[in-house]
Each structure stands twice: as C-alpha cells, then as structure tokens.
C-alpha cells in the first residue's frame, strides 16, 4: 500500500466519524495546550530570572587569577610549571603573556583580556573636587569586549582617556566643604578632563606626586557590579604609570598580570572553560556556576509543569484508546473484508495506528495553537499588571511571562502524535490479528 494512499484512507476514515474524532481530539487539545502553556510559562520565568542575572554580570565572562601551586599549600589542580605554561613565583602560577596564548587555545574561548590594577594611586581631581576610585588598566582598545552597558560617550579607549563606572561621579567631594554646607552635586564628567594624581615615595619617605590629565570619554550604565566603582584606562597607560611609581620596568613574563578576563563564546561552554583553566593551575571564577544551579531549578520546574500537562495527555490517551477500541468493534466486518480482499496484518495495523496518530495530530495541532494563544494572552495580562505595578512604583518591569521557543510547538505536536500511536497500539494490534473468518461473521 502506497504511503499517500494510506494517508488518504486514514483521513477518509477519520472523516467518517467527525463528531467522535473531534470529541476525542478535544482531550488531546487540552493536554497539548496545557503542556505548551505550562512549559512556556516555565521557560518565561527562567528567562526572566536569568535576564536579571545577565544585568548583574555577563555570564560568558570568566575571571582568572594567578594560581597557588602545590608548594604554596593550596590544591588548585594540575600546575603547569614549564613547557610553555605560566611562570611561577614564590609558589604562584603567574598569568604571563604565554598564559594568554594557552588559555586562548581552549575551545570555546573568544578573548583573553589581561587587566592590571594601578597601584600608583587612585586619587582623582576635577576642579575643586576630589575623588577616589579603583583604576584598572585593560588590555583592549575597545571596552565593548566587556559587554558593559554604556550610559554615554564611547567604549573606545585611547591613550590618556578613561571610561568610568556609573557610581564614580558620586565619589567626588569638596575637601574644603565647611560644616553645614550642602555637598556638591555629582559632576557630569563625560567629555571632561580629570586629573589623576600618581604618587610614590622616596627611600627617605618623601612623597612625590605626578599629575596626569585624562579625558573621560565614556560613562558606563549601572551594572550592580565591580564596574560601577572602577575607572578604566588602557593597560599600557596603567603599566607606564606603575613603572613610574616603582622606578623600574615591569617584565610580564616574570611578574605576570593581576588577572585575566576571559570571554567565552557562549554560556553553554563557560563551565568547561573554567574547569580547563583550573586544571592548568589558575583560579577561575564565573557567575555561571550560580546561574547553572538556578537553571537546574527551572529545569525541574519545567519538568513538573510539563508533567502536569502530560497527565492531561494521559487522560486524552485513554480517550483515544477507547475511541479506537469502539471503532474496531464497529468495523470488525470491514476488517474481515479488507483481509478477504488481500490486506495483510501490517496493512490493517498501519490503517488503525494511522487513525490513532491522526487523532493525536489533530489534537496536537489544535492544542499547540490554543497553547500558544494562551501564552500570548498570559503575556498581555502580565505586561498590563507589571506596567500597573511599575506606574504605582510598586515593582520593576519584568520580562515576558511565557516564552514559546520554536521547538516547543514541534515537540508538542510530535508528542501528541506519539500519544496517539501508543494509545492506538493495542486496539490496532487487536484489529490486525483478527481472524478474517471471525471478523466477516461478526454481527
């Protein structure tokens, strides 16, 4: 029997009992719609939760610090002592230029950015105001590599320019402020020239200061993280200022960098990258570890939600089995006739299994459409509610309430068809194995 002839025959047979098929399919519609809505809701909640985490920190980012080797007393895994790995200094596995090459060779690593603290001082002057900040030299010309949101200006760093975190203007104060006077408003520093005061001490304890003028070319938006209180400058600027402070040149192969910021290609590979860096003898951290535990919670939630929907489908499956059993009883003589004119057991099995799968498909299709529409209605209601909350100052605007990824409708329809096939299996086998002579004589 040709496949399309089989499909046509199945459609005709289903069309013969439209009312019964429709009623049976309603059960599948409800089950599939429940699966689609509940899984969409679970995915929506997960997306909403993780998107807020993304706001705090980029989940593709890994912070790498020098590692303690075994002689240093800390067990940090395998220590690369030679053969192209990092250098060691007093029991430390240093982050050297060679380490950059080694880490970049790990699959899934997009970029390795060396960063260094500026220990030559952290005082800033703007007009009569003074302020303090952590100054960080970064080994990139464009801070966009860090994925920090920008409030204004540019992310491109040139010599003697800086990009500041959102909280830096609040750190400025008037040192000559008298008691009772109002403190000055935080200055708008974008495009302004700020004096960076470097200092070092002579052997007899005298402080020597040096003023460097830097132009603030960009202000970052709030990240609720380290970036808010940091002034970013180019690494070569920071190195030059540190060398001035120390009076000698810095050899990165011997002294290493303070830390690396490693960007992974996507969030899926971050944990692997962290494991491999740790195995090289360095200390790598990522917020992804925290996020993965949140993700596993939401996966469990989705399974529970999906399970609730699946129970509805189980009820629908019983309905399909019942309908098919009734149908086979009514059509026993028809089965006998088909066998008399040459249908094999496999032909009969295919026809009845196909009819059960057809009911599953019709119900799955309807359920998916209704489930998707239900998700959209949920989103509209949730958006209206959240907007109302935000307007009254009672809450933040969240993400969507339900998210239906393209795989979910496809999965739901395939699942519904499988439910149909499974529930039709027993009746179809009964039909296929009917003795033709008994079937023909059935009253």
């Amino acid at each position, binding site marked *: 029997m040709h496949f399309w*002839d089989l499909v046509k025959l199945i459609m005709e047979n289903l069309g*013969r009992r439209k009312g019964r098929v429709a009623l049976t399919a309603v059960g599948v519609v409800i089950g599939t719609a429940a699966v689609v809505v509940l899984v969409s809701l679970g995915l929506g909640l997960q997306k909403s939760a993780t998107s807020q985490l993304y706001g705090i920190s980029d989940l593709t980012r890994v912070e790498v610090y020098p590692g303690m080797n075994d002689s240093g007393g800390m067990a940090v895994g395998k220590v690369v002592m030679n053969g192209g790995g990092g250098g060691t200094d007093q029991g430390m596995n240093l982050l050297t230029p060679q380490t950059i090459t080694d880490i970049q060779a790990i699959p899934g690593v997009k970029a390795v950015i060396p960063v260094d603290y500026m220990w030559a001082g952290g005082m800033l002057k703007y007009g009569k105001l003074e302020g303090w900040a952590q100054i960080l030299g970064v080994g990139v010309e464009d801070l966009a590599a860090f994925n920090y949101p920008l409030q204004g200006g540019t992310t491109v760093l040139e010599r003697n320019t800086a990009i500041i975190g959102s909280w830096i203007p609040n750190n400025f104060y008037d040192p000559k402020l008298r008691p009772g006077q109002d403190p000055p408003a935080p200055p708008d520093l974008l495009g302004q020239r700020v004096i960076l005061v470097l200092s070092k001490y002579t052997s007899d304890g005298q402080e020597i200061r040096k003023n460097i003028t830097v132009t603030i070319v960009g202000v970052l938006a709030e990240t609720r993280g380290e970036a808010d209180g940091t002034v970013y400058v180019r690494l070569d600027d920071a190195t030059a200022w540190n060398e001035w402070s120390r009076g000698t040149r810095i050899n990165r192969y011997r002294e290493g960098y303070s830390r690396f910021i490693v960007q992974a290609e996507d969030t899926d590979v971050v944990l692997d990258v962290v494991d491999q860096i740790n195995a090289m003898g360095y200390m790598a951290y990522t917020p992804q570890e925290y996020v993965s535990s949140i993700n596993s919670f939401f996966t469990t939630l989705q399974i529970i939600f999906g399970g609730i929907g699946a129970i509805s489908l189980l009820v629908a499956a019983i309905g399909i089995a019942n309908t098919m059993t009734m149908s086979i009883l009514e059509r026993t003589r*028809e089965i006998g006739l088909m066998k008399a004119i*040459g249908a*094999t057991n496999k*032909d009969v099995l295919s026809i009845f299994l196909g009819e059960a799968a057809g009911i599953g498909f019709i119900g799955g299709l309807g359920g998916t459409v209704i489930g998707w529409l239900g998700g959209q209605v949920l989103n509209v209601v949730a958006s209206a509610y959240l907007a109302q909350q935000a307007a009254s100052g009672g809450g933040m605007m969240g993400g969507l309430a339900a998210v239906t990824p393209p795989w979910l409708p496809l999965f739901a329809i395939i699942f519904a068809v499988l439910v149909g096939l499974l529930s039709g299996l027993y009746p179809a086998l009964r039909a296929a194995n009917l003795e033709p*002579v008994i079937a023909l004589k059935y009253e």
Partner: protein
Amino acid sequence: MTNIPLIQIQQLRKVFTMGKQKVIALAGIDIDIPAGSFTVIMGPSGSGKSTLLYLLGGLDRPTSGRIMINQQSIESMDENALAQFRRNSIGFIFQSFNLLPSMDTLRNVGFPLWFSGISKAQRDKRALDLLRTVGMDNRALHKPTELSGGQQQRAAIARALVNNPALILADEPTGNLDTTSGLGIMQLLSDLHRSGRTVIVVTHDPRMLHFSTHTLYLLDGRLVSEAEYNAAASMIAQVTQPEENPTP
C-alpha cells in the same frame, strides 16, 4: 493441458470448539475440483458448506487435512503469504455484499488494488472497465446505500474480479436478493465461468444447479450423494412443514 485438478482437498477436517463442546464442521472430506468448472455446493444450514468455502479461500485454517490450489498447499502458508494468495488468486463474493458505505462504487471495486500498490488512475480505469462488464458503469459514483441489492452484488462481483483471479468463491450470492436480481447474478456468475474462470458457489438456491458443471452435496460435514441429500432434505421439509403451516 494437464489432468491435475485446480483444487485438491484431502481428508479435510475442521472442528470448532464451543465452550466445552466440539462441533465437527467438516469430517474429513476429499474433493477434486477441475479448473474452469462451475461447482455448486448445496447443503442445509450447519452442513459445513460455508466453512469449506472459507477454508478454500484461505480465510480460515483446517484442523487437519490438505488443501492444494494450483499445486500450492495453502494450509501451511503464513499470514502474509495467505494475504497475498487471497489478493492474487481469489475473488470473494458474499451474501451481504460487504461494500464499504463510505466509498462510492468505483472506489469499492478498486479497493483491493490499494493493497497491491496500484496507482489511483489505474485503479479507477480497471474498476470502471469491470463496472461496465457487470452493467454498472452508470452507477460508478453512487454510494452503496444508493444502490439496490442486485446492483450492490454486481458491484461486489466486479470487486471480486479486479485482481483478475483464477478462482471465484461465492457464499450465498443470491441469498439477500429478490428472484429477478438473483437470476441476474446467477447469469453473471455463469458468464464468468464461460470466460474461463473457476467458480465455486455455496447456495441453498436450486436454480443455481442449471448453471453448474459440478455439484457437491454436504450433510453434517460429509459429502453425500444427490439421492441421500434429497432424502434428507425431504425429511427436513416434513418435520418443519407442520410447524410452519399448522392445520386448524
């Protein structure tokens, strides 16, 4: 041309188990049916004639004995081989027509070809040719419920011929028809016989004997002579008549 019969039945026995009781439907019969014959099997209800027909058609399996059709032993065939045998070698005609009510006449006639993987165009062409043969081409697009009993049986005969089988098996083909329609069907079966097919008809209807080349009489699962059958038939008639027409 060989002298080997188309059908050779040896010691064919069929026993049905009904609860704890065993009912012997066929008590070990031997029959040879030549190719190209028109065989009528006569017998009262319960004589085993329909059982014999279903066994010949591969719709049932014997308890013991042997059925050779065209030198093929069908009792040893597996389910798939039997299905193929029924599809290619046998054309069944039933008392109650067994047309599918959801399909029009054309599609009912072409239905066996679905299982042979024949294309729709070829199915329709072959079905229409056969409907023309049985004088039903003008009813091709009517559903079975729109046809008379005689017309339905003509369509069923066309369906039995669609795979061009060598053997036609008919189970009480005129049982549900009025006299005129029944005679028409008998004539049609006779035409099939004259065209070279082997026809076996199980019937109560003695008019069918006018068309037959061979007649078999069955009583209680045994083959009997015509005289024995007639004696039994008249005895049955005597026993049942007073009850059917009680005198005042």
